[in-house]
C-alpha cells in the first residue's frame, strides 16, 4: 500500500543540537512537503520539493534546511536546534496542484 513513512516518531535534543527528520513515500508522487503543526497556527509549510534535487522555500523556513535525495526520500535538517522548533512535524506527498496530500504519521520533536 502506498504510504508516507516518517522517522523517528519522537525525538528529544538539546539546544544547539543537530537533528535530521526523514520521510519516505511510496506513492510515486513528484511533490513532497514538510510542515510543522502548532496550536493556534495550524499546519505551516517549511520546505517542499517537486523532484529529486529540487528544493522550494516554504512559509516558515528559518532555521531549517531540507534535501530531496531521490523521488522517494525527503529530509528535514535542523543544524542548530532551538526550543522554538519544538513541534509536531508532518511530511506529505502529492501529485501537485489540485491533488490531495498523503500525510505521514508525524515526528514529535522536543528541544530542551
Amino acid at each position, binding site marked *: 500500500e502506498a504510504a508516507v513513512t516518517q522517522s523517528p516518531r519522537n525525538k528529544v535534543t538539546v539546544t544547539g543540537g543537530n537533528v535530521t527528520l526523514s520521510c519516505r513515500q511510496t506513492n510515486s508522487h513528484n511533490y513532497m512537503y514538510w510542515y510543522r503543526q502548532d496550536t493556534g497556527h495550524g499546519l505551516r509549510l517549511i520546505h517542499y520539493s517537486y523532484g529529486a534535487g529540487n528544493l522550494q522555500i516554504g512559509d516558515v523556513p528559518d532555521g531549517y534546511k531540507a534535501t530531496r535525495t531521490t523521488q522517494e526520500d525527503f529530509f528535514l535538517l535542523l543544524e542548530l536546534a532551538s526550543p522554538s522548533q519544538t513541534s509536531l512535524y508532518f511530511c506529505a506527498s502529492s501529485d501537485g*496542484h489540485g491533488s490531495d*496530500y498523503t500525510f505521514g504519521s508525524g515526528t514529535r520533536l522536543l528541544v530542551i
Partner: protein
Amino acid sequence: GDSVTQTEGLVTLTEGLPVMLNCTYQTIYSNPFLFWYVHYLNESPRLLLKSSTDNKRTEHQGFHATLHKSSSSFHLQKSSAQLSDSALYYCALSASFSKLVFGQGTSLSVVP
C-alpha cells in the same frame, strides 16, 4: 499571498446538534481547489472533502461543503454531530502553486 481563515479555534457541541465550521479564503487565482482535512489524535491528517466547482455541494461521510466563490467560503457542515467526530479540522487552499495553504484549524469537541 494566498490565505485561509478559520475563525473558530475550538467548537464544543452536544451530540446530535448540527455542525458548522467556518472557512474563508483569499487568493487572486480564479480556479482554486478547497479542501477539508480531519486530524484525529495520534493519527495522520486525512482528506475529508475537496472541491473546485462553484456552488456545487460535495459530501463525504455525512459531512458536506459548498464552494462559494462569490463569498470566498467553503464552510463544513453536518446535520448531526457524533462523539466520533471529535477531532481537529483543517480547511486548505490550493491556488496557483502545487502546495496547500492551511487555516489555523478548528478543534471540534462533541460531548454527550
